[in-house]
């Protein structure tokens, strides 16, 4: 294990701890980004370039932005502190602990966990793409359909909301304006 790995591991864990313990939600989101970056670094260190860079592209470039947007748009930036809800601690701990337990159990159940000195030959991007497009084409399509459905659902929700309250404070387009004038 190289010092780089330890550095990245510290970065990842530190980010995760900060994300859980900081008081300001936006700070928490930014700490989570540090975790994402650290994880991507670990992937890159393992030689999984495609995975690591996709991690940065998707998580730092899109998911983190989504997080902070949600925080800003739902809570308002003026209200910085979480409100303390001690009664929610126990279910949260239960869900988190359960999920963590399952993950650890799965990893421990793998037969080849014993540290190998020579890692297996990593697949190239081309091999990755080929297996995605041949062996795993059905799961890929299913995931695609799922995401599209989610997207359409979000669009429908947003649209119906506007139709219900047309006089809402939504932006007045120039066309509407012209007609009210006439």
């Amino acid at each position, binding site marked *: 294990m190289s010092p780089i790995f330890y550095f990245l591991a510290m970065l990842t864990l530190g980010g995760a701890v900060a994300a859980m313990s900081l008081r300001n939600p936006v700070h928490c989101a930014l700490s989570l980004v540090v975790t994402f970056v650290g994880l991507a670094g670990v992937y890159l260190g393992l030689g999984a370039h495609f995975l690591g860079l*996709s991690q940065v592209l998707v998580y730092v470039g899109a998911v983190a932005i989504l997080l902070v947007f949600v925080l800003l748009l739902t809570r308002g930036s003026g209200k910085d502190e979480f409100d303390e809800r001690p009664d929610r601690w126990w279910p949260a701990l239960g869900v988190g602990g359960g999920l963590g337990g399952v993950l650890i159990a799965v990893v421990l159940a793998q037969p080849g966990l014993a540290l190998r000195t020579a890692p297996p030959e990593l697949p190239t991007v081309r091999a990755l793409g080929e297996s995605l497009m041949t062996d795993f084409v059905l799961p890929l399509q299913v995931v695609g359909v799922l995401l599209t459905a989610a997207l359409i659902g979000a669009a429908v929700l947003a649209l119906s909301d506007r139709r219900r309250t047309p006089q809402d404070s939504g932006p007045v387009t120039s066309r509407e304006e012209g007609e009210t004038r006439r």
Partner: protein
Amino acid sequence: MAATLDQLFVQLLHGMTAPLPEAIRPWVALAISLGAILAVFGLCFGITTVCERKAIARMQNRLGPNRVGPYGFLQFAADGIKTLTKEDIVPRTADQVVHFLAPLALLVPVVLTFLVLPFGRNMTAMDLEVGLLFFFAAGASTELAVFMAGWSSRNKYSLLGAMRAIAQMLSYELPFILSTIGVVMITGALSTTKIVEAQAAAPGEWLARWHVFTPWGLAAFLLFLIAAFAESNRSPFDLPEGESEIVAGYFIEYSGFKFALFFMAEYLGMFSSSGMAVTLFLGGWTAPFAFLDWVPSWMWFFGKLGVLIALFIWVRGTTPRLRMDQLMDFAWKFMLPLALIILPTAAIWHYAGRGWLGWLVTAPIVVGAYVLLGRSLVGRRRIRQRSYRYAAT
């Protein structure tokens, strides 16, 4: 002679790292390349700002800066000294840590994008197998820095500017990436070096195989360029820093050196996007005609880069700023569908071949899609006199 000149910098780097032990050699080489990139593009940044001001002034029949140095070309040095010596003001209510980190978080990914650009033959600082992905990953993480800057300043204008910037960057990221996928499909590689090599003239041919010389490549190049304009927040997509309404957008609360960093990151982003456009569509460091091969490869790269930067400046001097709804319409209703149509077109081109058959099949698709989408975007709208609800007419 030509070959030595071509490989001059490669040899130089090799000579500098040769005496070092094997283990640290690649890291030192990377550090030297990074330093060279920073120096060269830092200077480029300075010169570009002067040239831009002069060129735009001439387009408006003005003189432009002409006081410092010969023909005013040292203006950037004066500006640099000025910004460096200015007081660094942090708003009292600002989020100090995030406010401090934002310019760094913006500049570092932008500089990293240069690492995968092939500046010449054997002149890629970090020749990754997934170089293109690296470019986009680094480019995508600048959005978060923009948010950090806008949010931590605790200023309405900066937050508005950040919101606009992120909305714009997210929207244009899709065509930005999608337009390159055709190239990846044709060359079958994500490595920038391989993409460039695939565009060199085949032995016996006089014209290089630049992707821009194909119907789908031309369309994808234009899409990529437009998205690059938007990603670098330059006119006509400079809403995030619309001076007339939100003063300076997300970096309104920055002064002195940090302001300069933002400014520099913006220009460096423009350079790296242009460099990527050169790499993907204009054949990188390859010569357009086979008989021009003797010109050193890095000269071709920087020449093409200069042409693209001139185009950036020219467009900035020409276009007014778009409105937010026009911006979004353009991204989602024109660029995204066109990028999606280009993908199968590139596939058809791959199978129809480079000959007349390929042209005959793909050119009508691209032109037809362009015309139809363009008409659906602007054709329907009737332009009539504006009326205002509150202002007296």
